[in-house]
């Protein structure tokens, strides 16, 4: 998983045709619809890859 639009696992259904209301929150916080540390880690990895310091994320 390299981009936020990629799905963390098969539970994620967000596409432009079948959108999820929580998509933006999910990108930065990890999945809202289910709990899975592995999925959270996947999201986090995308951010860590390009975050330049602790303050990079401002939400």
């Amino acid at each position, binding site marked *: 998983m390299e981009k936020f639009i990629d799905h963390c696992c098969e539970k994620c259904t967000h596409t*432009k045709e079948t*959108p999820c*209301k929580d998509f933006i929150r999910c990108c*930065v916080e990890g999945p809202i619809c289910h709990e899975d540390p592995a999925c959270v880690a996947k999201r986090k990895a995308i951010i860590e890859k*390009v975050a*330049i*310091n602790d303050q*990079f994320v401002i*939400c």
Partner: protein
Amino acid sequence: MYEKHLMICGATGCLSSGSQAVEEALIKELKKHKIKDKFRLVMGGCPGFCEVGPIIVVYPDEVFYCRLKPKHMAEVVEKHLLEGEIVEHLLYKGPDTEAPARFFDTIPFYAKQKFNVLRNSGIIDPESIDEYIMRGGYRAFSRALAMEPAEICEEVKSAGLRGRGGAGFSTGLKWEFTLNASGQKKYVVCNADEGDPGAFMDRSILEGDPHAILEGMLICARATGANEGYVYCRAEYPLAIKRLKIAIDKAEEYGLLGEKILGYDFNFKINIKEGAGAFVCGEETALLASIEGKRGMPRPRPPFPAQSGLFGKPTTINNVETLANIPLIVKEGGAAEFASVGTEGSKGTKVFALAGKIRNTGLCEVPMGITVREIIYDVGGGIKGGRKFKAVQAGGPSGGCIPAEQLDLPIDYDSLNKAGAIMGSGGLVVMDERTCMVDLARYFLSFTQKESCGKCTPCREGTKRMLEILNRITEGEGKLKDLDVLDSMAYSIKDSSLCGLGQTCPNPVLSTIRYFRNEYEEHITDKFCRAGVCKPLFNYRIDADKCTGCTVCAKACPVNAISGEKKKPHEINLDLCTNCGNCIEKCRFDSIIIEPVGREADVSN
């Protein structure tokens, strides 16, 4: 994880100073040492300090390298990236400080700035939607989707945001007008037709943070009930257009533009329209005509675009910088935070483009209410070449000048209006004693005269007649009563023109007469231009006491009018001299004097 991130300014200013070649050299060096994968290179937005470009900022160290050349890259890679040692001689060093400075904390240019609109510029990759989202992007839009449209308008109103395009009308109120207008089809238009000469903040925002504009438009659409948007952008900004197109594609892919956005009953699409080179299209009704494929001519208001705009439908038109503020206001708690900065009548920050005879040219974002002095001396570093500050022109061809006596004027909408200038789009052009205020007024009027669309008589004919008078004055043919004629014509044009262009274009003339009447009178009665700009109205002379006989001026003279022996004072042959000004530019001893025509006859008698 990358070891370090290198942000190379890829905005027009730095590209012009050669940042592309710097990037190529950097990549070559990284490849040479086989460490390219450890470091992330982003050719991104503008950190604002164009004067010292090309710029690279190295994160997380926050080291700010400037005035870079391709040959410096070997050092940056070998010393800094490989050994962790900062390359001292590439750091910024101010004229008054001993030690070189690192990033924001120590560079005076950044000390008084507050980044709202430019929050992402130079920090994220403008072509990456993910990075925009990581920085909190599209959060405000997600929140807006769950709100009632009227609630969103109310929040924007409570923040006190006023339009950043010029007139300073309340943005929330404007939205409410469109929301309350009836009709199924409504539009949002982003005015990116930044035409004021000397202003380039919108370009920088579009190039550095395009998603902020899309998010602003989405929130506006949600608040006003619109379902289609246009960005009307100058064709002279190809990079901005390219980045916007990429941003729109990405937002569509992510389901942030299109139908049933994020599962809500909300559809929105955005089109880009390239302008075709007409200043008047910055005026909202002319802009709409241009989008419709017509000649870009304004029409009388009312009806206002909020009732009848694009293709006759209710339309909200906001400027780029206004829209870039929106996500900050609509985020949780954002409105109060926004309103906590600025003055009573002008909230938030404003981006200014500093240009002209100022040391630190570039973009700066400062809280409203900062004084002219702080911007020019603290942020701008004072006047180039240590000359004397004369005035600053605010608001471009629609604005006016602020003279040295008013350096402590706070910069906000109302104070500027009172001083005879306007906020306009935020261009600040600084002038020193070598700028002629009559020529400046003539310059602005010749610009607006050329750009007048010709629809209404006061603007079409009036500007032409005023320009003729100003031309006459700068040629030494002026009469004192011309000043009264200029004054009365200016007010007639302001009162009777159809659109903002005509209503504001006499401002530079009025304000220069108000503050520099003596210069006009000097042009008219003494036939003298003390700034040395209006060619028929001055002569150059070499001050024999100051001239060292270095011969630089003689070499620079294209018509061989300067003669003299080496190490002895030189002389100018006025019969040959064309007043081109090469000598005065080159002289390092201030020995070239500007004096009235005919003075040399007095001396010889």
